[in-house]
């Protein structure tokens, strides 16, 4: 990276090629496999655009890990927004690739919120039960189910900022 900052294209190509494998492994552990390549590309673009923030006095590993983590958190944030606004029981019959990715990420994030809210979100957003069905199953009123989903999603959004790498 130090050589790349000086404009050494050969060193930069070697760095990006090796980094690509590391990033793919990093994201494979954290997101649905369909989203991995997009995140790898996003991270490479970010590395390129923000390479001046790398301090040559420090090692490169923690810096690129921080960049990758930032991209991952951004992805989680976008996923949660998507799940909250788009993914509901009207979309039951046409599950897209994005829905599958989103569900995969939300499943991992459910452990960040209290179990009752996590259960309701799992039933509504992941198993795609209707509000009435969830209401019957959990004993909460339909409006209370809606409120729990909304609050749970908000809590997850806030928790995303604090997520640890071992999620």
């Amino acid at each position: 990276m130090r050589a790349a900052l000086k404009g050494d294209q050969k060193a930069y190509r070697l760095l990006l090629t090796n980094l690509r494998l590391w990033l793919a492994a990093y994201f494979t552990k954290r997101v649905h496999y369909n989203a991995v390549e997009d995140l790898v590309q996003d991270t490479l673009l970010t590395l390129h655009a923000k390479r001046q923030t790398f301090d040559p006095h420090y090692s490169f590993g923690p810096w690129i890990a921080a960049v990758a983590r930032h991209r991952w958190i951004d992805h989680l944030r976008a996923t949660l927004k998507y799940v909250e606004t788009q993914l509901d029981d009207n979309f039951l019959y046409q599950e897209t690739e994005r829905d599958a990715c989103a569900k995969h990420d939300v499943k991992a994030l459910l452990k960040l919120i209290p179990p009752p809210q996590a259960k309701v979100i799992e039933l509504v957003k992941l198993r795609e039960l209707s509000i009435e069905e969830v209401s019957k199953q959990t004993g909460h009123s339909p409006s209370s189910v809606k409120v729990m989903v909304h609050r749970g999603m908000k809590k997850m959004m806030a928790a995303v900022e604090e997520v640890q790498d071992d999620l």
Partner: protein
Amino acid sequence: MKVSRMTDQLIKHLVSDLKSLEPLINSKLWMHCTVCLLIMAGIVLAMMGLRADYPTAIQDGAMLWKPGIFLLAWIGSMLLILDLSRPIERIEKWHFVPLFLAGTILLWQMIVQLPYLFSSDATLSLDDPNAIYCLSVIIGGGGIAMAMSWKFWFSRTASPNPTTLGALAGFSVGCLAATGYALHCDKDGILYLFIYYGTPILILSVIGSLLSKRLLKW
């Protein structure tokens, strides 16, 4: 396989786009902002002059503690800005020391001035017609310093917390301008300080934090 090829192409494109680039260097920001501070103080002194009562102000310490509060706050905010400018957050505890000292001096002055805090003299000073200069110099001077340092530093950062960084940018340039203006201003009341110095600094901090939402995202 198709997606993989896209990453190959992306790498090829990024490599061909590579140019030599100077990394962010902390000492350069210090130099840039110190020059801004000197220019600011120079303009204030050249156009408005040193405060008229400076012999008394030197004796009672106002010449020291008033610019000192803003100078320490500026140094503290600069240290935190440097901690937050790169993807890895490295906030060192001792970087809060200048801010703590500035707060301590402010508190000390509040205690010293407590008996006169709500006296007629103190409230009369709030009606000072020159207060508009205080507001406009801090907002105007701070705004110019912010625009310059934004281009020079902030737009090149990648902060883990862009909103805080933006707010600190506004706070820092506000304190910088206030340090310069405090050399001229002869109003030492703590109420005056809170209203006519605090408000523009707060405004600049809010502007910085709002700008960061659009301009410091990465």
